[in-house]
């Protein structure tokens, strides 16, 4: 490698000065370098996309594959398996084409708007209970640990038919499986083995005595081609739902509340007009400058993006958060506007692989916000926003703590 290559290659993820603010480099990349060479934590090279149109196109273009285990695909992290993006989960569930669509639609029936409306009272009761406990402990409290972290794992455990007593195990597994650097490879492997063993037994038990949970239904049903879902795919589906649905939503609850309290006029506006909760949640999703790694794709053939030819074998990283701040897509993109409509942000991706659980995430975020506004209208940050710190080493970005009082 030549010296000037080193000088021109950015390290990715790009650090940011303040926990809630985007890195200064995003605007310059979007304007001047829409396809940027970056060095990943593993040391491998990739191309970073930051413009709205490019990210949106790539995420829905089947030529940009999810084949991140290809021989010449960049590894994300330094540890051997490359973390969650290269896990065995990626090979058990069909990753593309009709097979993927059949799998997605079998699972997708669990995430319809109607089903979300049915789940909402249960989520509200969980949020109320967690807030009761937080209030009983007194302030200042860490809203992330008290509310953000437990709530989504409770929701997923319910969805999978896992008993309440195993919620803590699930929280640990999901944290370990998603982390790219905090745990050792041995810890990640052990967590994965424990989780697969647990889920294998759980799937067998559900087959024997079906309940009204997602895994029971999936194990009884068949896809559009009449094929039942094999046990391996059921286990992988459960694992996928946990790692995709826990830490992401947990952190987003903390970041959303922190963003709304960092400028308390936002919180007051919601208190005055709770009908803004829906658009405020969408805007928090768009405005989140710290969502984590972004979405990697592997290019199986040569493609042109933003006027540049990207060779076959390139790993592309889509920064949805940088794209969400693109002035060409959003008016006053740098301002958090709680009534922004429409808000076609890319936080959940785009196209056939866009987040399967996005309706659930929205329901959880809206419900938590409604309950907080109702229960703790005097809520405020217990530290200056500039003192908030980001978590490190996760595929999913978040704040270490969200200290609050009321």
């Amino acid at each position, binding site marked *: 490698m030549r010296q000037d290559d080193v000088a021109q290659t950015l390290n990715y993820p790009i650090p940011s000065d303040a926990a809630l603010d985007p890195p200064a480099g995003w605007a310059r990349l979007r304007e001047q370098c829409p396809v940027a060479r970056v060095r990943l934590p593993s040391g491998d090279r990739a191309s970073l996309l930051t413009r709205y149109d490019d990210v949106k196109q790539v995420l829905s273009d089947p030529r940009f594959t999810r084949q991140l285990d290809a021989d010449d695909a960049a590894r994300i992290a330094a540890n051997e398996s490359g973390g969650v993006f290269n896990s065995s989960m990626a090979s058990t569930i069909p990753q593309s084409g009709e097979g993927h669509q059949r799998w997605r*639609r079998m699972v*997708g029936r669990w995430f319809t*708007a109607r089903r979300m409306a049915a789940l909402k009272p249960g989520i509200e009761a969980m949020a109320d209970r967690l807030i009761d406990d937080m209030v009983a402990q007194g302030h200042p409290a860490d809203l992330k640990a008290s509310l953000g972290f437990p709530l989504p794992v409770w929701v997923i455990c319910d969805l999978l038919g896992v008993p309440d007593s195993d919620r803590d195990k699930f929280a640990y597994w999901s944290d370990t499986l998603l982390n790219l650097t905090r745990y050792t490879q041995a810890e990640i492997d052990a967590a994965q083995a424990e989780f697969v063993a647990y889920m294998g037994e759980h799937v067998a038990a559900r087959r024997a005595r079906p309940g009204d949970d997602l895994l029971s239904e999936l194990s009884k049903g068949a896809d559009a081609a009449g094929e039942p879902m094999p046990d391996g795919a059921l286990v992988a589906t459960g694992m996928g739902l946990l790692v995709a649905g826990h830490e992401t939503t947990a952190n987003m609850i903390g970041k959303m509340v922190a963003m709304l309290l960092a400028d308390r006029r936002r919180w007051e506006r919601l208190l005055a007009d709770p009908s803004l909760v829906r658009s405020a949640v969408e805007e928090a999703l768009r405005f989140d400058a710290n969502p984590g790694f972004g979405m990697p794709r592997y290019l199986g053939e040569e493609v042109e993006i933003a006027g540049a030819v990207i060779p076959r074998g390139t790993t592309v990283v889509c920064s949805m958060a940088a794209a969400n701040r693109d002035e060409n897509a959003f008016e006053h993109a740098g301002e958090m506007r709680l009534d922004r409509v*429409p808000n076609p942000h890319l936080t959940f991706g*785009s196209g*056939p692989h866009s987040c399967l659980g996005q309706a659930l995430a929205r329901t959880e975020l809206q419900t938590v916000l409604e309950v907080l506004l109702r229960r703790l209208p005097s809520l405020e940050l217990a530290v200056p926003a500039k003192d908030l710190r980001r978590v490190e080493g996760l595929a999913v970005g978040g704040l270490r703590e969200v200290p609050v009082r009321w």
Partner: protein
Amino acid sequence: MRITVDEDKCCGAGQCVLLAPEVFDQREDDGVVLLLDAAPPERLHATVREAAGVCPAAAIELSE
């Protein structure tokens, strides 16, 4: 306004149903979009435009 939906593209995100339940629904068995009203009244046009704009799969086409 005329609406067409592409069931093949639909990824079942359900945004359209939440925004305009008089116009869109989802199939019970797989979450794919069901078009209830291909020519909705004018009072619904703004929310239908929003639904089309935020559909992650770009599965809703409008001709006005």
